[in-house]
């Protein structure tokens, strides 16, 4: 479990230290892409906890979701429609869903361990 955390910290560190400038006009799109990425990551965590993790689906989801979210926001701008709000809402809901499932999965794991330990002692 340490490797992903190290990766996360490394990414954050590089992001904070690198002098990459996101052009002002694209800040909105990258923000949505990041939202999509968070959703994908949580989805991956959940899949792993439910033992149905697929790296291909995970990686493709990460890239495609982020790219499509940004594209959707761009299209919305072209149409003069706040389409990115749709992406924001959709991803937010999914993130909450995933967090909820992760919580339950983690609780399941915990209770299973507690039960196992009780069984072992009792």
């Amino acid at each position: 479990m340490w490797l992903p955390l190290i990766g996360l910290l490394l990414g954050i560190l590089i992001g904070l230290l690198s002098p990459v400038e996101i052009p002002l006009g694209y800040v909105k799109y990258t923000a949505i892409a990041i939202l999509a990425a968070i959703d994908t990551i949580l989805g991956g965590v959940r899949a792993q906890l439910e033992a149905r993790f697929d790296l291909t689906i995970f990686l493709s989801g990460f890239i495609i979701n982020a790219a499509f979210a940004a594209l959707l926001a761009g299209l919305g701008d072209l149409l003069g429609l706040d389409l990115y709000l749709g992406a924001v809402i959709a991803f937010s809901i999914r993130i909450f869903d995933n967090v909820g499932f992760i919580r339950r999965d983690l609780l399941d794991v915990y209770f299973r361990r507690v039960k196992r330990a009780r069984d072992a002692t009792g």
Partner: protein
Amino acid sequence: MTVARPVVRPRLPWWQVGLTVVLAAGGYFAATQIRNELEIREHLRIPSTRLNELAIRLQKQERRRASLEAAVGELRHQVAVLEREAAERQSGVARMNREVSELRALAGFTPLEGPGVVVEMRDSPRPIEPGDDPNKTILHYTDIHAVINDLWAAGAEAIAINGERIITRTGLNCVGTTILCNTKRIAPPYTIVAIGDPARLLAHLQRPAGPAEILRAFGFPLRLQGLERVTVPAYRGTTQFTIVRPAGEGP
């Protein structure tokens, strides 16, 4: 792949590797995004979500500025027009000043000079004998008037007599042995100064049956003199109208 899975590490965490990469990428993007957002807030003092609103405001202000600039241009143009008009008006004033000075000269309020003639008239030096009418040896205002009228007729442009400028309101009349001109008493010898073409004035005065001939015939000494430069003084009397006013104006 499942077959090739190394037995030494039975649970090679592929998902961990993938998650690591993804988290690294996500962390990188998120950190970059946050850093940029913070910089934007630091520079613009507003979150980037308000950028659109700001952009619209900026556009509005720019449009307003453009219209104001157009107004400034229009106003500058107006100022230029007004300045030109003012300059023209000033030149108009200068023209009017010239006109006024000309009119003053014409009205007799300025001393004038130019080529002209000097006519000196005296009473008859003939001694009055008993029974003689003394009126026949002294100059009358009609004599002077005759000379002045002839000078005007010959094209004189300004006339003075004994330092009294002849203007439109000048009257000549006799009071005893003196003559009143501009309500001032003048006495012989009468020196009439007229500005005009000397040759023409002299010729007109000396024409047959002209005033010069008549005066001489009656024994009045007369001296005519054409000069290159004579001076006519300004009218010194009152210039006020107390009763008249320009026609066409209300009471």
